[in-house]
Each structure stands twice: as structure tokens, then as C-alpha cells.
């Protein structure tokens, strides 16, 4: 039980560091840690498949891509000029208002039942696969089309225009 | 232009077929070549432990010879130093005193005889110039050392050890 609160604290801590770190590479590394805490949350809920997929897709592919792009662009530290102080205050204020609104609306609900794992098989590959390929077969296929189109789009966007050889990176 | 020797061969490079472009046969062939080397005897030798035999006319470290009585042959005539193209040899001559007949063969001998091994090119001209057959390049490889001055070999290193010892 207390594991959840500890991990939750860590997630919030690291996610604050993500948005406050000066160096973008550091904030990616903090994001990795945040996602790692999420993976632990999934394991605690016995969603093994999601935990591993979170591991592979988010930490292993998406964040590596982020890091890769950032290293490729190779920004200097001073290249991100800070926003004016008032804008910062306004941003924190806006985000805070959102958080307060969400939390206070949650407060009015009262305490709910605890999350109890009724069916320990729920998050296993076998069970998820059955649901995925019966009820959600069409969305699954559509998502494959989405991925394919994203791949083609990314290649199309990132390739240099052959007519303009002066493009540099 | 026509080639003079008519030995020129026209090389035709065919585009590789599918099997060749798969590269797998080539990789297997390469692997078999390296594997055949795996079982071959090593061609290297364990140098300080075992030494490869030198050829007959190998020219190594100099040695100053003694005659059949154990006396030094060198008479400090200076022909070797004169013939040395690298100017590696220096010597100081001295006169033989009474009672030193068993040490030096003639009346004149080399009190100091130095060869700078960093200058020496092991050409063997000193050996050929020597009228007394006193110097021969029949030794080993020159040892490595840490200081330049240690490469200047004196008589202590060059002269042959006495006969009956």
C-alpha cells in the first residue's frame, strides 16, 4: 500500500523536474525516470503486458528517439531564451488552477472503493490478446494503418528536398 | 592506343546474380578461410625465450677478438674508425708497458675503444678494413636501453671474454 504512495511521490517529483530542468537532455532523462515509475505502477496493478510494452515502446523507442533528435540538433544551453517572468507566473498559475479544479472536484466525490485486482489474469498477454483480437480487431488494424502512414509521413518530412541541396543540419 | 606488350586483358565485370548478392556464400567462404587459419601453426616465435637462427652473414653486435694466446688483437691503427661511414667508432691508443705482453699482442693497443650503437649502421666496413682481424660483427642484436649514453659501448662490452675461463 505504501509502495503506491512512494512511487506516486517519485512520479510527481520527477515530472516536476522534467519541466523545470534547464538542459533539455536532462529533462529527457528525468522523463525516462518518470516513465519508469509508471512501469512500476503497472506492475503493481499486475498489468504485466502493459508494463513491458511501456518499457519497450516508451522508454526503449520513443524516448531514445527524443534523445536522438536532441543530440542530432545539438542545442547549446543558452539557445532557449527564458520567457518573461510574468508569463511564467501566468503559466504556473494556469496549470495550478487546472490542478486545483481537478482535485477539488475530486474531493467532492468522497472516498471511493479501493482498487482491488478481482481477476489476477486481467493484464496478462493471453487475456489481453483475446480482447484485442476479438472486440478490438478493427481498431487494431486501423492503428497499424496509422503507424504505417506515420512512418511514411516521417520519412517524407525528414528527407531533404533533392532540389535544394543546400539544406544543412 | 594499342598496348605494346599485348598482355592487357579486358576485364568484364558481370553484375552479381541473386545468389551472389545474398552474400551468404561469400560469408561462409570467408568464415571457412579464417577457420582454416585457426588450426594452423602459429608463425610467430616466443622471442626472448626462443630465438630465430641468424643467417651466416648476419651482422650483429661487434666484438673485439683475441688471438690464440688470449691477447687482444687490436693495435689501435684507426682504420676501422676511418672506414666507418657513420663515424661511430672512436679510440685512444696507448703504448704497451712491460709485463703486459700477455694482454696485448703488439706494442700499441687501444686504451679506449668506443662504438656508439645508435650511430652504427652495421655495414661491416670496419670488419673489412681491419688489417689484424680484430673486429667482427658476429654478435647478437643490440640490447635496448633507457639512456643515450648507455648505447656507447666501451671495451668492457666489446672485447671477447678471455679464452681459458
Amino acid at each position, binding site marked *: 500500500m505504501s509502495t503506491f504512495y512512494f512511487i506516486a511521490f517519485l512520479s510527481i517529483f520527477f515530472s516536476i523536474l522534467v519541466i523545470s530542468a534547464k538542459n533539455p*537532455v536532462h529533462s529527457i*532523462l528525468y522523463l*525516462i525516470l518518470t516513465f519508469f515509475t509508471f512501469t512500476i505502477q503497472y506492475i503493481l496493478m499486475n498489468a*504485466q*503486458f502493459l508494463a*513491458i*510494452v511501456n*518499457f*519497450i515502446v516508451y*522508454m*526503449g*523507442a520513443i524516448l*531514445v*528517439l527524443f*534523445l*536522438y533528435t536532441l*543530440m*542530432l540538433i*545539438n542545442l547549446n544551453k543558452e539557445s532557449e531564451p527564458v520567457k518573461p517572468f510574468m508569463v511564467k507566473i501566468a503559466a504556473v498559475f494556469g496549470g495550478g488552477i487546472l490542478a486545483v479544479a481537478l482535485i477539488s472536484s475530486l474531493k467532492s466525490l468522497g472516498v471511493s472503493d479501493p482498487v482491488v485486482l478481482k481477476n489476477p489474469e486481467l493484464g*496478462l*498477454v493471453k487475456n489481453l490478446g483475446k480482447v484485442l483480437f476479438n472486440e478490438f480487431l478493427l481498431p487494431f488494424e486501423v492503428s497499424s494503418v496509422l503507424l504505417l502512414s506515420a512512418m511514411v509521413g516521417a520519412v517524407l518530412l525528414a528527407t531533404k528536398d533533392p532540389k535544394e541541396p543546400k539544406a544543412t543540419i | 592506343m594499342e598496348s605494346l606488350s599485348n598482355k592487357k586483358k579486358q576485364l568484364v565485370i558481370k553484375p552479381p546474380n541473386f545468389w551472389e548478392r545474398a552474400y551468404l556464400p561469400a*560469408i561462409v567462404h*570467408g*568464415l571457412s*578461410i*579464417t*577457420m582454416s*587459419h*585457426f588450426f*594452423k*601453426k*602459429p*608463425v*610467430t616465435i*616466443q622471442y626472448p625465450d626462443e630465438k630465430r637462427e641468424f643467417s651466416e652473414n648476419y651482422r650483429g653486435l661487434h666484438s673485439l677478438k683475441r688471438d690464440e694466446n688470449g691477447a687482444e688483437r687490436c693495435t689501435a691503427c684507426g682504420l676501422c674508425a676511418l672506414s666507418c661511414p657513420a663515424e661511430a667508432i672512436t679510440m685512444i691508443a696507448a703504448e704497451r708497458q712491460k709485463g703486459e705482453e700477455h694482454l696485448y699482442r703488439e706494442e700499441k693497443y687501444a686504451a679506449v675503444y668506443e662504438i656508439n650503437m645508435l650511430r652504427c649502421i652495421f655495414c661491416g666496413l670496419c670488419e673489412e678494413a681491419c688489417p689484424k682481424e680484430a673486429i667482427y660483427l658476429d654478435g647478437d642484436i643490440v640490447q635496448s636501453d633507457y639512456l643515450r649514453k648507455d648505447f656507447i659501448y666501451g671495451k668492457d662490452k666489446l672485447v671477447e671474454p678471455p679464452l681459458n675461463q
Partner: protein
Amino acid sequence: MELADIAIKFGLIIIIFLISLVVAMYSTYAERKIAAFFQDRVGPNRAGPFGILQPLADGAKMFMKEEIIPTNATPFLFIVGPSLAILTACIGSAVIPWGQNLVVGGRTIPLQVTDINVGILYIFGVVSLGVYGVMIGGWASNNKYSLLGAIRAASQNISYEISMGLSIIALLMVTGTLSLGEIAQQQHGWHWNVLYQPVGFLLFMICAFAETNRTPFDLPECETELVGGYHTEYSSMKLGFYLFAEYINMFISSAVMATLYWGGYNYPGMDWVTAHTGPAIGPLIGTAVFFAKIFLFIFFFMWVRWTIPRFRYDQLMDLGWKILIPLAIANIVVTGIVITFFS
């Protein structure tokens, strides 16, 4: 769970860590010795008989060396990089089945740390994390060569992970389970998966070479182009960690290949041997066979290293994206057709 079970599990973990470290240590020796044999040389033979103590001497040297952290490096990340590399290399061994259940004194001891039912995906995830060690280290060194090495490592790993995953999918269609323990059990006797999935094995092996940064694909650290790649700035034991992580990775990926495709601890005539030697010795023979397979694979890794020259960078990407991925997809399709119509 009883205390004894926990103790046994703990002991097993320690033993597996020790074994993988010792194997990695002696892989460095084997690499030098085998390289020497392939090049008609003798190899290290000064430390101990046949140079058998050479890894210890190397380790001692690594410890003695001066620890250098470059002035402009990010000190914390500079240290995190190699630590992460060796950590991700080590934790992969948790799900590999090292042998059948051992029965000693009426107690059954599974020779596998944990048999989670997404074992392959776990290995896959650990492998995909391995690139972080390289990337963080390369970036934190604040050196152009290191950064180039890190970028190369990232793109290479991402590219080859895809075809690795696709080749595993074809295997999963045959086995029908994600648990490595079950996959090893299914290949009892002669039913090794390589007989059903030869193309898949080839793809997996090529990708394993790429993921462990071994020689035809060692572009992240190629010393002729990038000085030392991502570990240019490293010295002392931090460099040792990087080199060590590579050998542990090689050991683990050899073990995974042996488990997934070459029958794991199974060998023909296994039932007969187990019946004659008893349940305490029989599984250990299986484990020995498993290790023999692993060592064969490690030998193969080294054999390839001294045979095939390094790829050029665009050739590497072409191989990954234009050849291996279509081949893997074709393999999946053919496997599906065969399973649907012939079984």
C-alpha cells in the same frame, strides 16, 4: 514463500551473476586468444600457464589507472553512463532458463530466477534500454566523437530492434508462448526451433550482432573512424565497465539465442541420460550442454569478428531497413501460411 525458498532464489541469483561475470571476464581472454589463433599468432601467454590469469591482470590494470573526468563533461551523467550499461547488461539473465528443475533432497529447485510469462518481451525491453548507457555516456563526455558514437548507437539499435522483434514474432507463432521456460521445454529432444525457423534464426542472430555492437556492426565505437566512439573520454574502471558490458551482453544474447532457437538445455537422448543419472545430476548435464551451446555462440561471435569487415554506415542502415525488415515480414507471412494450412 518459505525462507528456504528465498535463500535458494537468492543463491541462484548470486551464482548466475558470478557466472556471467566470470564468463565475461574470460571472454576477454578468449577473444584475444582466439583472435591470435585466427591470425596465426600465439596470444597472451605470460600471466600464468597459457596466460590464464590475463583477465585478472587486465582487471588490476583497469583499477590502477588514473580516473579522468573531462573538465567540460557532465560529471554525474558521465558516471551514470557506464553504470547503466553494465546494469542493463546484467539484469537480462533473470529470465533465462539455465536448466530443468533440480531435485535435491526432496526439494525442487528451478534453475531459472523467474519465469514471468512475458519473458521474451522482458529481454527485449532490457536490450532496448541498453542503448541508454551508451547514449548518456557519449553525450556526457562532451566530445564530438563520443556524441557521434552515441548517435550511431541509438539509430543502429532502434533500426535493428524492429527486425529483431519481427523475427521473434515468427518464432512466437510457432511456440505459442512468451515464456522462455516453456519455450525451452517445448524443444525437448530434437524439436529445436532452428529447424522450424532457420530464417528467423538468421535474422535474430544478425540483429543480436547489431544490438551487442559486435564487429560487423561495431560502428558506435569504431576506432578507425571515431577514435573510440562513445567511450573515447573514458578511462580506468569506467572504460572497463563499458568493455565488460559488451561481453556480458554477448553472453546473454548467446544464451537467448541458444534458448530460443537451439533447444536451450535440451539434447538428444536426454530422457535416457536423466533416467540413468537421477534427478540431481541429470539437469546439471543439461545445464552443461546449455553452456556448451552458449560458448559455441560466443566463439561464433569472435569468429565473425575476425572474418567480416565493418559495414559502412549507409550499408548498415540499408541492411537493416531494406533487407532485414522485409525478410522478417516475409518470414512471418510464410510461417502463418504454413501454420494455417499444414497443421
